[in-house]
């Protein structure tokens, strides 16, 4: 008989990494399975000239139809779309962006780290739509307080209730003149601004911040190349007793045993695992309420006139910032619920597509605006809806014979109206700062492309409408936990990973305590 572990963790990204970090330090013996290989950063990365790449940086055509973030330098990082297919209705494409490596998407994430607030946790109280979370901000605040120092989040405390302040490496950097002008314009329009809040360091990943500490305890066994197919249960008790997995390279089948199971395979993969296991769905809510954030990339593209003609000095140009949600806080918009945020950045050269020119004239125009660009991107709240869902498509299997997901999500009027509003406001903000707006639009990227997929195993107090309780524990299977973004009841315009980490920390401490008390395992 092979050892039985206390807790088996599926996935080594943000959520799985945090579960391992917490549990192992409490003396819990963990087995972590990840579908991907370990990365050897010394051997598996190296500098190359773009012209040395076989496709001159364009990448192999058609290799990643749904990963707009893929380029020829990083192509080998993303999960192969042919080995890992999924389906959707052709009219409603979904861009599912995955990384199957130890560390998951935290190997590549942008590290933007914002707290959510009771505008999200108690959104139904605020505007009547959807459901509240079973927790409120104050339940999560102590965990945010511990995650931020661990991820070395840099930021500036502002006192904005919609993005509560955290424990930051204080960002006191000076702003360039163009940023100062933009902030002044925002102030005149009563629009708040702040510094970006980001985890610092070249990497702020599970592989450097969470897994080393967990391994050091001696309580973690990490197995790469382990594609988990199904959670297994004890026939008598109905409790989870391990998982079936397949070696990625050889397709050899295994079964591993544990007293409790934590899923952290990323939002949609965890839902897929539960659906394929036929578990945790007495509510009928499993797979439903899929949402994300919508992005309007470069909602406006502007030029700072004083920086034209080679005058984009460091004093004038450069730097970035953030506008937190400002709609529907104390007032009520007629056309949409909730709100959106922006990232803004100064410097850089606007894309050639914005110039109705070609040849030498285009080159001259680009030289003229070199470094003089100012851009904004909208990140908007998406309403969770029962009819947006994932289900198993039995007709299609992945490389390992595991049935795949059919994904159905689209944006609706509320998101469209918000996107339009964000374009108008962005334009006014730029004009107010004296910038020339050279392009504007409100076309959102397809659902999924923001890489902030959430929901499908939502938490709640009502067993009839939710899959998990407030500690990410399955209502139906008490020793089965889902700790990634699939537990979200709703989201805001904030990027979700800091909240995923805080929830995983909270749930893991609860699990450890339950095991200590023998309530589980």
């Amino acid at each position, binding site marked *: 008989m092979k050892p039985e572990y206390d807790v088996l963790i599926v996935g080594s990204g943000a959520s799985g990494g945090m579960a391992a970090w917490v549990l192992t330090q409490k003396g819990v013996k963990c087995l972590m399975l990840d579908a*991907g*290989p370990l*990365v050897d950063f010394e*051997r*598996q*990365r*190296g*500098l*190359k*000239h*773009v*012209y*040395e*790449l076989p*496709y*001159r*940086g*364009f990448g*192999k*055509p*058609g290799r990643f139809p749904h990963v707009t973030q893929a380029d020829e*330098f*990083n*192509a*080998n*990082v993303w999960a192969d779309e042919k080995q890992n297919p999924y389906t959707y209705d052709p009219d409603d494409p979904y861009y599912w962006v995955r990384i199957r*490596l130890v560390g998951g998407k935290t190997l590549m994430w942008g590290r933007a780290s914002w707290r959510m607030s009771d505008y999200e946790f108690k959104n139904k109280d605020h505007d009547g739509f959807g459901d509240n979370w079973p927790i409120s901000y104050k339940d999560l605040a102590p965990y945010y307080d511990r995650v931020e120092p661990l991820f070395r989040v840099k930021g500036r405390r502002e006192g904005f209730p919609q993005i509560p302040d955290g424990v930051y490496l204080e960002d006191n950097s000076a702003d360039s003149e163009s940023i100062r002008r933009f902030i002044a314009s925002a102030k005149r329009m009563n629009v708040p601004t702040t510094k970006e809040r980001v985890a610092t360091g070249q990497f702020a990943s599970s592989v450097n911040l969470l897994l080393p500490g967990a391994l050091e305890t001696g309580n973690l066994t990490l197995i790469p190349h382990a594609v988990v197919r199904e959670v297994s249960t004890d026939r008598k008790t109905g409790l989870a007793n391990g998982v079936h997995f397949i070696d990625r*390279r050889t397709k050899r089948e295994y079964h591993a045993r544990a007293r409790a199971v934590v899923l952290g395979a990323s939002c949609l993969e965890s839902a897929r695992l539960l659906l394929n296991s036929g578990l945790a769905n007495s509510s009928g809510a499993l797979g439903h309420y899929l949402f994300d954030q919508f992005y309007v990339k470069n909602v406006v593209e502007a030029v700072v006139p004083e920086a034209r003609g080679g005058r984009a000095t460091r004093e004038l140009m450069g730097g970035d910032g953030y506008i937190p949600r400002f709609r529907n806080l104390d007032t009520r918009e007629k056309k949409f619920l909730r709100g959106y945020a922006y990232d803004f950045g100064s410097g850089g050269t606007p894309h*050639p*597509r*914005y*110039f*109705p*020119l*070609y*040849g*030498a004239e285009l*080159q001259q125009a680009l030289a003229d605006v070199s470094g003089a660009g100012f851009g904004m991107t909208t990140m908007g709240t998406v309403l969770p809806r029962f009819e947006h869902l994932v289900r198993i498509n039995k007709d299609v299997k992945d490389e390992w014979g595991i049935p795949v997901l059919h994904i159905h999500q689209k944006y609706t009027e509320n998101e469209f109206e918000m996107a339009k509003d964000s374009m108008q406001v962005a334009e006014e903000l730029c004009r107010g700062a004296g910038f020339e707006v050279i*392009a504007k*639009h*409100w*076309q959102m990227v397809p659902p999924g492309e923001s890489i902030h997929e959430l929901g499908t195993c939502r938490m709640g107090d009502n067993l009839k409408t939710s899959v998990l309780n407030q500690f990410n524990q399955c209502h139906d299977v008490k020793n089965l936990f889902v700790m990634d973004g699939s537990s979200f009841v709703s989201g805001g315009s904030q990027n979700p990973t800091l909240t995923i980490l805080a929830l995983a920390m909270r749930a893991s401490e609860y699990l450890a305590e339950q095991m200590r008390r023998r309530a589980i395992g």
Partner: protein
Amino acid sequence: MKRRRAIQTLAGISVAGALPLPASPQQTSVAPNQPTGANQPPNETPKLDSAVAEAAAESVPRLFSSAQFGALGRLAELLMPAAGENPGAKEAGVAEFLDFLIGASPADRQTLYREGLDKLNVEARNRYGKHFAETTGTEAGTILAPLRRAWTDESPEDPLARFLQAAKQDVMEATLNSREWSVTRAKRSRRAGSLGMYWYPIE
């Protein structure tokens, strides 16, 4: 490259040859940094300089007919002409590269290009009685008028306009990412703009 060659010379490895041999027990007793004499087999694995095929050989166009290829060459030259020291699309072998890239692309991309290039030739014949490849800049300018329309986020209905937008982007990128562009820039600036962090296949 120069640095690498210097390291190889120091290690006593002839750049022109010397495949690494499996080490015998005696050889492993030699300290790795010890210079290898004439009678001693090398203990370090050599890193050989190599070049990309494009630097040494003509690529053979496969996808486009000669009329299409001629139109593409002219279009590329018009979209990204050489300027001062900077090479243009012609010097960067962009038409040859795009013949390869589009040839490796999904069918809809191939159709967009093929039909777009045919349309350029048809327009040139109807308006000026010649191939697009032979048009002057002014003549070509009337055919490329869709590129002078203001940007919108909608993809244009007109297939020629769609093709020209795609070509504008592809030609610029293929030029800026070319070896010729990189070499010219390197002469002027010590910052190697074309360098990026490449992830090798991860087993």
